């Protein structure tokens, strides 16, 4: 009897233990259901709907696939541009962010926290304000251009495509630069975290095995820090591809990104179906790109 009781108790507690994870998950699941799944389904529905008249508030669901084909046809330039800008900005973020994270993690010493703090400080100001500040800094009569002008460097910059018509704004470079600046901390922090975990004795071991410093970095430190680069790449590329603030304030009419088109469709044209279709296409491309990217860089170590 006692034995069976104990078994029952065990079953019950096991059953209870089986429910605990679900109980713990439920707030998050509920959140996702309410604020991710429901909007997603609504968006999908809208993207396949048609509006009876322009100023009708509701669109009728009619499986209107043409929203997607029209959107792809009319806005392929902006899609390509968005991913090209976001890709360039991500690469620049790695190029700038990796050395910074490396120095902070291994050479920061007692200034480590101060340096990390400095990386985060710009976040205390709104994204929009920081971008507008760049606009002012890069104005034709602004400080950077007058310095470049006095050094006669504007012509050189024009030849390599950074400047245009004697100005620094409204160029591909200004938008990519803005994206890089705004998303750089999202690259530095994950790389820093993965570098910081590395046991430096491993590089000593590599050197004992006749690796020079560069080889030790390439064969030991770099592979161990790749999860950070992977995470940083995602955190930079995804928001950058959908961004419209940088293109709006630092770019011109030939630098618009898909985010601006979505905004224009939603707010100016009141064309919710096309806007929804564009958002959906953007989401699908980003998901596919992420999957491919995960295949190449691998997500197993990503925790």
């Amino acid at each position, binding site marked *: 009897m006692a034995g069976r009781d104990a078994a029952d108790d065990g079953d019950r507690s096991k059953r209870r233990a089986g429910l605990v994870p679900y109980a713990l998950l439920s707030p998050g699941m509920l959140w996702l259901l309410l604020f991710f799944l429901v909007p997603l389904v609504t968006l999908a529905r809208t993207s396949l709907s048609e509006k009876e008249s322009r100023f009708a508030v509701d669109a009728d669901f009619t499986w209107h696939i043409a929203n997607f084909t029209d959107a792809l046809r009319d806005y392929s330039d902006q899609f390509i541009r968005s991913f090209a800008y976001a890709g360039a900005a991500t690469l620049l973020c790695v190029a700038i962010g990796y050395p910074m994270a490396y120095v902070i993690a291994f050479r920061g010493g007692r200034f480590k926290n101060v340096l990390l703090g400095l990386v985060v400080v710009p976040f205390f100001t709104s994204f929009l304000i920081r971008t507008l500040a760049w606009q002012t800094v890069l104005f034709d009569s602004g400080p950077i251009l007058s310095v470049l002008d006095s050094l006669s460097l504007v012509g050189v910059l024009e030849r390599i495509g950074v400047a245009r018509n004697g100005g620094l704004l409204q160029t591909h470079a200004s938008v990519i630069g803005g994206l890089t600046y705004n998303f750089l901390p999202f690259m530095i922090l994950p790389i820093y975290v993965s570098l910081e975990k590395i046991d430096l004795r491993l590089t000593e071991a590599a050197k004992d095995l006749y690796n020079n410093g560069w080889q030790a970095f390439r064969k030991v430190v770099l592979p161990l820090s790749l999860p950070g680069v992977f995470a940083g790449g995602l955190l930079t590329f995804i928001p950058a591809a959908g961004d419209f603030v940088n293109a709006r304030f630092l770019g*011109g*009419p*030939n630098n618009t990104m898909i985010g601006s088109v979505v905004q224009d469709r939603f707010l100016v044209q009141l064309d919710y179906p096309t806007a929804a279709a564009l958002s959906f296409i953007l989401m699908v491309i980003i998901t596919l790109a992420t999957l491919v990217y995960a295949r190449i860089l691998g997500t197993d170590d990503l925790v």
Partner: protein
Amino acid sequence: MTLSHPARPRRSPRGGPILDRRQLLGRLGVLAGAGVVGPALLAACGDDDDGDTGGGGGASKDLWFANWPAYIDEETVDLFTEASGISLKYTEDYNDNNEYFAKVQADLAAGRSIGPDIIAPTYWLAARLITLGWVQEIPFDDIPNASNLLPELQKPAWDPEGKFSLPWQSGMTGLAYNISATGRELTSMNDLFDPAFKGKVGMLTEMRDTLGLVMLLTGEDPGSATMDSANPAFEKIEEAKASGHIRQFTGNDYMDDLAAGNFAVCVGWSGDIGQLALDNPDLRFAIPEEGGMRWSDTMVLPNGAENVANAAVWMDYVYDPENAARIAEYVGYNSPVAGVREILAAGDDFQKALSESPLLFPDDATNARLHVFASLDEDAEAAFDERFSQIVGA
């Protein structure tokens, strides 16, 4: 033709005039002449919360006017409250016609109140709201001063019966330029496309202003625009955009670009340049020889507005020429109220100069060259917007 602007008291950018003591006293002296110095002084003492003075007898003492930024002087709101006892909530949250429409569309379509009792859509949006039946008739019986509305603005194309809207201010669209960047006065729309200014040219995202001016250059009449007649202008803008001739399409922020030297020349609004020229005398405004555009921002009462009677009191107040003159003096656009010019002409030197400014009071020859963009029906408007936004956003 280049329009110059008389020197005015220094004014903070997009803010109110900075008055020194002498000017302030002078200003109060003007008001004393109008018999309202007492309330003005009271208002100056910061006592702006006494909604019980004055009669009226209405149930509510509230009113809410959502207007464009920097579109009224600093005294009128307080003076109105003093005179009428109505507490006016004056907000400057009307920044963009399309965005505002998108914001209130769902509520108005569903017949819900949007909050403000008066909003300030530009004429073409007023036309859309009137066509959609989303605005209330204005109780003109309670607005005797509405008879001061200039004859040319009565029963305008956007409100053919003249029942639903009353202009707030009108203005002109033309060429705004920085003479230190252009090196010469500009007189023609061709100057906007001069290759010398490549990459230093701005256009407005307000379609009717930009497209209308370019249509005049292509020899078409914006007043009867159709997709066919507008096409050469669309193509001209598209080509200039693709080649990098046009640097940016902007809203109100074109003024920053012009002042900062990013734009040598752009499409601009008459009143803004008057204000900007105070800080930077190199900034000029011209109605090109091909012609310019004329527009009005209106006051309309959205459906669901609760304080219509108080709105009528406000409209009557600002259509009093004395009050209209005070507003016109500050904003520098074209007042829709008859008699403003005479009042300014009888004022101090500064006001006298304003009364002679072609920016505030264009002469008959200029008026004859100003065009109002055609009223587009829903389908045509959608086609125009679509084409224009593909140029601006592609």
